[in-house]
Each structure stands twice: as C-alpha cells, then as structure tokens.
C-alpha cells in the first residue's frame, strides 16, 4: 500500500513534467512551417515537419492528463502536495548512495572528461567511484564525492563562462597536473582515514591498482590501438605519445 502511494506520488510529479514537455513541444511545433514556404518549397500540412511532433505531443498531453487524474483519484496528488511543506527527511543510505553515484558520473562526464587529460580524469573517477562504494564507509563516500565535485564543478563552470584554458596551452597542462595532485592528495587522505582498518586498506590498494591499470589500458587501447583521439589529450597523453614515438623504431 505504501509502495502504491509512493508510486502515485511520483506519478503526480511526472505527469506535471510530461505536461511541460508536451506543451513545449506543441509551442515549438507551431513555429515549424505548415503551409508557408520553406527553402523555396511551398508546404502542405501533411508534409510539414511539425506533423509527427504535434501528434506525439498531443498523445503525451492526453496520457499525462490520465496519469494526473489517476494520481488525484488514488491519493497520490494529496500525498505529494502534503509533503511539500514538510521538511524532507534525512536521506536514507540507499538514497545517499544513488545520489553519490549520479553525482560522480555527472561530474566525470560534464566536468572532467571534456577538459582534463583523459588518463588523469579517468584515474580520479575510478578511484573515487570505487573507493566511495567498495570501502563500505559512509563518511568516506561523502568525503570523496564532495572532493570529486569540488574538482569537476569548477572545471565545468569555468568552461561555461569561457575561462577554461584552450587545449594545448601551458595553463591547460598545469591544470591537468593540479587534478593529478588532487588525485594523489585524495589517496593520501583516504589511506590515513583507513588507519587501523586492515581490510579497508587492502580494498583501497585494489582500488588504486584498478583505477591506474584501467585508465592506462583504455588510454593506450583507444589512442594507439583503435586510433581514436581521446576526449581531452593533456600532459599525460602527450607523454604517452612521446614514449610511443621513442619506442616505434623497436617494432618498425
């Protein structure tokens, strides 16, 4: 029963989201050519690019209304509105883990991957993501997640306002090294926090090994094996390129 109410509560909010999406789609579809000419072609309604979006948005609007009415009928809407004024209860263990996982993935993709050297970004991501969950300690999970976001969010924001250095510039390489230093610093801090926890330190050693080996393997495999340029090639990838050039005579 509680699960049903929770589901209907969620239905209430999602129906509103679908309303917004459908309305925005309809508004946008009405800006598309219907009968007027586009690119020198006189349109007729049935060839209009707005035809399918309008049909989809109308369907979505009808289904969102059905979802909303069901939520109202089954008490989901009342529960959802009632919970608005109340202070949100402290996040449970599962919710904290879910939020931490989403935050780390989002930080990696939106913050680090487009800007920081692939090897450094991936090693940091793996170290934080694995340690946060594998060590099984909530305070370490929180600390690592916050520290990770403290690196990823400024990188994202700086790029958003056009202040992040361009690829190949010395200041960009310097920032790669700063992130590498953060990686090393997090290692030291986490290791010290695990003082006296033999099993925890063993797990953290595995974490470190996995994060470095996987980062190195994927960098080499994609960059030199599949010949795919990496999203951001910074200081470490440049070093790898130099090593490859130096070693090339050995197999040529």
């Amino acid at each position, binding site marked *: 029963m509680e699960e049903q109410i929770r589901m209907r509560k969620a239905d209430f909010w999602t129906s509103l989201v679908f309303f917004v999406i459908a309305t925005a*789609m309809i508004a946008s579809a009405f800006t598309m050519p219907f009968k007027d000419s586009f690119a020198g072609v006189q349109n007729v309604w049935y060839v209009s690019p707005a035809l399918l979006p309008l049909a989809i948005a109308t369907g979505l609007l009808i289904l969102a209304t059905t*979802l909303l009415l*069901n939520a109202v009928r089954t008490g989901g809407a009342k529960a959802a509105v009632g919970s608005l004024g109340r202070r949100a209860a402290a996040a449970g263990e599962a919710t904290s883990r879910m939020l931490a996982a989403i935050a780390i993935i989002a930080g990696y993709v939106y913050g680090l991957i487009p800007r920081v050297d692939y090897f450094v970004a991936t090693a940091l991501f793996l170290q934080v993501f694995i340690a946060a969950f*594998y060590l099984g300690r909530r305070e370490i999970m929180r600390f690592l997640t916050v520290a990770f976001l403290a690196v990823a969010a400024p990188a994202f924001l700086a790029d958003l306002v056009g202040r992040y250095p361009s690829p190949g510039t010395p200041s960009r390489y310097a920032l790669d090294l700063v992130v590498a230093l953060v990686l090393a610093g997090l290692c030291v801090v986490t290791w010290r926090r695990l003082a006296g926890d033999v099993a925890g330190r063993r797990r953290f050693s595995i974490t470190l090994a996995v994060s470095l080996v996987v980062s190195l393997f994927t960098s080499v495999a994609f960059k030199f094996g599949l010949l795919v340029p990496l999203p951001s090639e910074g200081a470490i990838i440049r070093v790898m390129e130099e090593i490859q050039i130096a070693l090339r005579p050995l197999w040529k």
Partner: protein
Amino acid sequence: MDIVAQFGAFFAVLFTLLANPFNWVLLIAGTVLGIVFGALPGLTATLGVALLTTLTYGLPIASAMVALLAMYVGAVYGGSYASILINIPGTAAAAATCLDGYPMALRGEGGRALGLTTTASFIGTILGTVALVAFAPLISRLALQFTSFEFCLLAFFGIVISGSLTAQDLFYKSWIAGLLGLALACVGRDNLQSYPRFTFGFSQLEGGIEIVPVLIGAFGIPQIIKTMRDPLHAAKPQEVRKILPDWGTIGRQLKNVARSAMIGIGIGAVPGVGEDVAAWVSYGVAKNTSKNPERFGKGEPAGVVACETANNACIGGALIPLLTLGIPGSPPAAMLLGALLIHGVNPGPNLPFERPGFLLQVTAIMLLCSASMYVCGILLCRQVIKVLRAPSEVFLPIVGVLCVIGSYAIGLNIVNLYLMVLVGVAAFFLIEMEYPIAPLVIGVILGPMADENLRRALMVSKGSFLPFFTRPVSVILIVTILLVMLNQVPAYRRRQTAFFDRVFRRRPAAA
C-alpha cells in the same frame, strides 16, 4: 537444386569465415567475454553488445558480427551461472533459471545443472538459427509488398507491442515511454525537408540523436546507478565438481525442448520483448504441462531446460524482425541494429538486394557462436565461476568508463556523452517508476521510420488517411495495434475474460 545451391553457398560462407584466424580469436574472445558479462550480476547482454559495438566499429562487418553475436549468445547463456551457483540471476533472461537451478546446486548437482543449461542453450540457439533461416526470407519477400503506409504502421506496431509485454504498473506508462522515445527521435533536421526540429540552436543536435549513445545510456547508466545503490553481495558460489553435458536428460525432455524453443522463437520475434519474457513463459508452460508440477521450484531439471532453451532460442527469433523489417526483436537486438547502422548496413526488406548473402553470413556466424558457446561453456566453466567472486562495486565503475569512452569513440562528439548521461539518469528514474524502457528505445530507433513514412504516405494520398483503411496489410496492422492496445486496458480484459467464461465454461449450477 535450389536448396543444394543454398547449402553450398552456406558452407562457402562458413569456410570463408573460418579461414580467417582473426575471426577465431574474435569468436572465442566474444563468447568468453559474453559468458563473463552474463555471469556477473549487474552486467547484461545488452550492455555487453553495446560496449563491444564501440570496440568493433573499425572492423569489417563480418568480423564485427562474429564478435557481437558471440557476445550476445554467450551473455544470454552466461546468466545461468550466477542463477545456479549463487541464486542471483546474472541477467534478467536467467531469472527463471534460479527457481530450479539453485536447488539443484544445493543438492550438490550444480555441475549437472550447468551441463544441462549449456546443452539446452546450445540446442536453443541452433533451433533459433534454423527459424531465422527458414522465416527471414519469407518475411522479407512479404515485406517487399509494403509501402509507406505499412512501414509507418509497422513502426507504431513495434512501439505498442514492445510496451504491451513489458509494462508492469499502469498500462499506459509503456505508451508514455514509447512517445518519449519518438519525441527524442524528432530531434535534429527532418529527413524530408531538412528543417531543424528541437535543436535549440545547438549545431551538434542538427544531425539528430545518435542511437548507440542513447542505447548505452538507457541500458548502461541505470544498471550502474541501481547496482551501486543496492550492491549485490553474492554468497559464496556453490561447489561444482564435474561439468558434463547431460544428453540423457535432454533426450528425455525432447518435447519440452521443442516447445520451449518455439516459445522462445515466437517471443523473440515480437519487437522489443526480450529473453526474460521467453524464459518465464516457457517455464510457466513447462510447469503447467508437466506430470509433476509440484517438483518445479525444488530442483526440477525440466524447469532449467525450459528456461535456457527458450532464452537462447529467442536470439534467432529476435534477429528475424531485425533483419527483415529493421525492427529489433529484443533489447540486445536493438544494440545490434545500432552496430549494423554504424557499419552501413540498413536492415529491412531491401537487405537481400543491398547485401546479398548477408542472411547466410549471419546464419553461419550464429552456428559458429552456438558451437563456441558450447565448447567454452564446458571447458571454461570452472574458471568463469571464479569471476562470480568479483565485487560489483569494482567492476561497475570500469563499465562506466567503457560506456563513456565507447560512446565518445563512435562519433567523436562530446555531446553524445552529455546525452548519454541525461538519457541514462532519466531512464533510471523512469525504471524506478516502473516505466518500461524497451518502448522508449524502440521509439528512438523507429521514430525516423514512422515520421518519414507517415509523411510520404500522406504525400502519395494527397493528405487522405483513407488508404490506411483500404490496403489489406494496413488494415491488419491497424486491427492488431488496436487489439494490442485494448488488451492492455484492464476494463477490456475483465470483459473479455467474462465473455470467454460465458461462452466456453458452464455456469455453476444454481443452488
């Protein structure tokens, strides 16, 4: 004579594939990787095929298909390892195998159960392949008669039917998911007039949304978030002494095997409905038709055989609509569609003309994959069991990295990554609210087909909808779509049940 020539062509293709040693490496590596992906709870066949797609896009199409199909076949089979040995299904397709596989392992028959699953999966894959080679040309020939009217309806049919069997909560949630998928497919310049739709001024969105990153996001990211939130703390795997193919038991189960294979093939051919549904349905049928239904759930070999035959037979079934109509029969087949498109292969009725011999090639590859799965399953079983001890908190972040770099590698476009995470997080919350993801994915895939053919059909009829109701195949499709939709409405189902009760059953005698 024609059949002899076809057989000759088939063996020629088979030997050409085998003549390339690189294909051997891909076949064995793909199978082993597939078994490992299937065995590890939290990793799925779809995710395996998705990640491998990103690694094989530089290979020739034949070699890429060897790796991808080996992964697909191996992963569907590999799911049974975790089901039998730790009572946690490695993939959703093997969930039903837990019911009888784990009790067998508890009795000390883990090796026998694994031998049975290996043999049943092998037979299932072979029978699925036979169905593929038998039905695909017929459906292709039929589909050649289709025009824009039928293709438009076929796209909607795919979306509706994939939702009908996967919806768990409110029936219309599957329709909402399908519409969201179609809405995503509208992003970018439209195919007929090149008008930019929902691009918000971003030039990166003008080419539309790439299918593979969306699929990786929809299937990979929710799996990672869910498993990190609720980690799978697997128990110590049950001991396995000897793994031998139990042909004797299979021989006594021939009727069960044939029936389960037919169920698997049939369900596989239904767009978007995967191996998990096939396994559950065939398990239910095997139990209901058994002379000893009370033994099911307590370690009955027939239960294991039914599930494993059906889920592997489903693969061949899922390839039938994929290759003949361009509509994927299951989520991993949706990934295969993405891979085929990347390689410049457009599955559909024109495939036999554009790429003659491709169907034979796929059939030969399926045959090789089933043989490879059988050999690797028997020989490497004990080594794969060791993988079950790997903690999910370690391997899922690695999968996360592969999702990211794989999605990026396909188009070298960072926007693909942004989309992948957005779609992935949205898919996670939709799954939490019991929205099926299959219709969403099928919507993204079939959206362009629906859009283009709807407008093309209306152009032909000068804006009239009448031909939709006068063309025989169109009418059949419309009736089927309406029936499938109606069948999901609880009020209609209640009335339908009451009607059949009235017609076919006697009313209880009045007191």
